[in-house]
């Protein structure tokens, strides 16, 4: 107790050395199963610490190790190297098999996010069942995004950090083949000729994607 007090008191005056900060980030990330954001790291570390810099060193340190430091959305986490998965039969968690509809819906949301239900249905050419969306929400792989500013203000869906974590993605930008799909115009929300309804959506849609790829 006393030690803690002195420790944090001291920190008001000087930030720990970067090597020490690296140790701290290492300890915090090791202790957590879920990704921890830079902001959360900073909040837990002594005043004046720079976890972002410490993360750069730490990531380098774990390159090629059995455990790697991954960036997941705005969080960071240690994950075992994927090539060692064969050693982990004991830890493997049997996940419920997703239906084809759920997998396709997930992919459409990931690649087109933010995506409305109407857009998902337009792409798949079939109604999206409530259960499919529920299952993805339950897995915490998708969540509600901002409402679309179009008539009816439909809700949109976006993918979550849990999704990124599950598939080992730094961000939605790293989705496989995203660039090629965009270049081929396959992520455009091209309206049916003669119908304007979806056309209105398009501006918004592009805005959403731009926003996503800006930072």
């Amino acid at each position, binding site marked *: *107790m006393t030690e803690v007090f002195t420790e944090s008191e001291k920190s008001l005056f000087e930030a720990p050395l970067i090597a020490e900060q690296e140790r701290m980030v290492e300890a915090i990330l*090791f*202790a*957590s*199963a*879920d990704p921890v954001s830079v902001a959360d790291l900073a909040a*837990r570390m002594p005043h004046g610490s720079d976890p972002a810099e410490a993360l750069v060193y730490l990531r380098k340190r774990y390159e090629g190790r059995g455990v790697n430091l991954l960036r997941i959305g705005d969080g960071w*986490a*240690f*994950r*075992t*190297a*994927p090539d*060692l*998965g064969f050693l*982990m039969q004991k*830890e*493997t*968690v049997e*996940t419920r098999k997703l239906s*084809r*509809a759920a*997998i*396709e819906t*997930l*992919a*459409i949301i*990931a*690649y087109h996010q933010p995506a409305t239900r109407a857009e998902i249905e337009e*792409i*798949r*050419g*079939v*109604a999206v069942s409530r259960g499919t969306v529920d299952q993805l929400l339950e897995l915490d792989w998708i969540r509600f995004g901002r409402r679309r500013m179009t008539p009816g203000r439909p809700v949109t869906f976006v993918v979550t950090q849990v999704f990124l*974590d*599950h*598939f*080992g*993605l730094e961000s939605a930008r790293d*989705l*496989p*083949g995203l660039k090629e*799909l965009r270049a*081929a115009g*396959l992520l455009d929300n*091209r309206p*049916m*000729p*003669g119908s304007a309804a979806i056309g209105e959506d398009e501006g918004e849609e592009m805005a959403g994607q731009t926003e996503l790829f800006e930072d």
Partner: protein
Amino acid sequence: MSDPSLFEEDRTSVGERLASEALIVDVDGFEGPLDLLLTLSRTQKVDLRKVSVLQLAEQYLAFVNEAKALRIELAADYLVMAAWLAFLKSRLLLPPDPNEDGPSGEELAAHLAFQLERLEAMREAAARLMGRYQLGRDFFARGVTEDVARVRRVSYTATLLDLMQAYARIRTKDEFRPYAFDRVHVFTMEQALDRMRGLIGYAGDWTDLMGYLPDGWSHDPMRRRSATASTFAASLELAKQGQIEIRQSESFAAITIRRKAP
């Protein structure tokens, strides 16, 4: 258009027939008309961008007819698609009517081709996504987590004022004793009257009342307070007796007295 369509009356190959039947039996397996169209388009064995939409429309319509013949209930959206494809087919086959508004058959066909290509692309993307290393299957999180312990720490505070008040309380505690008049530090009104009666004769003009405090009573606050009160009370008594006049120009200003002219 060069390939004989699967569902035309004159199909000959047993293989094709079996394929078509499999298609019909599997109708439940399709994720809607677009999915069915995508499957049909594969029989053209061409890049989706070069798919013959007219041929596709014919294949689809044939499929729907076949289903009807076999009394298979088709969901409404399959029939809606069939109607739309029949319309598209007529648009593609008839020369364009210059007086008619709306998209041309080619535009509609191109859009359908785009939809098919996009659905196919999403299917592939989904497959690539699921083919990625997955958490809990190929790579793993920390097995034992140390949850952040929520430590409730009670912080006691006290201000300097608390400290000083406490000390003052202790140091003055001894004085909470039975009431006893402390004569040493009290200047009585009688004493003040005696003193003033003796002095007033010498005061010609207006003189500050405080000037009448006895020697040794004007520094110690306790003594000063007592002497001030008794001197003031004595002056009121003298004024009542008509011996002096009292004046105060405003609140809290100095009180001055002078001998009343006889």
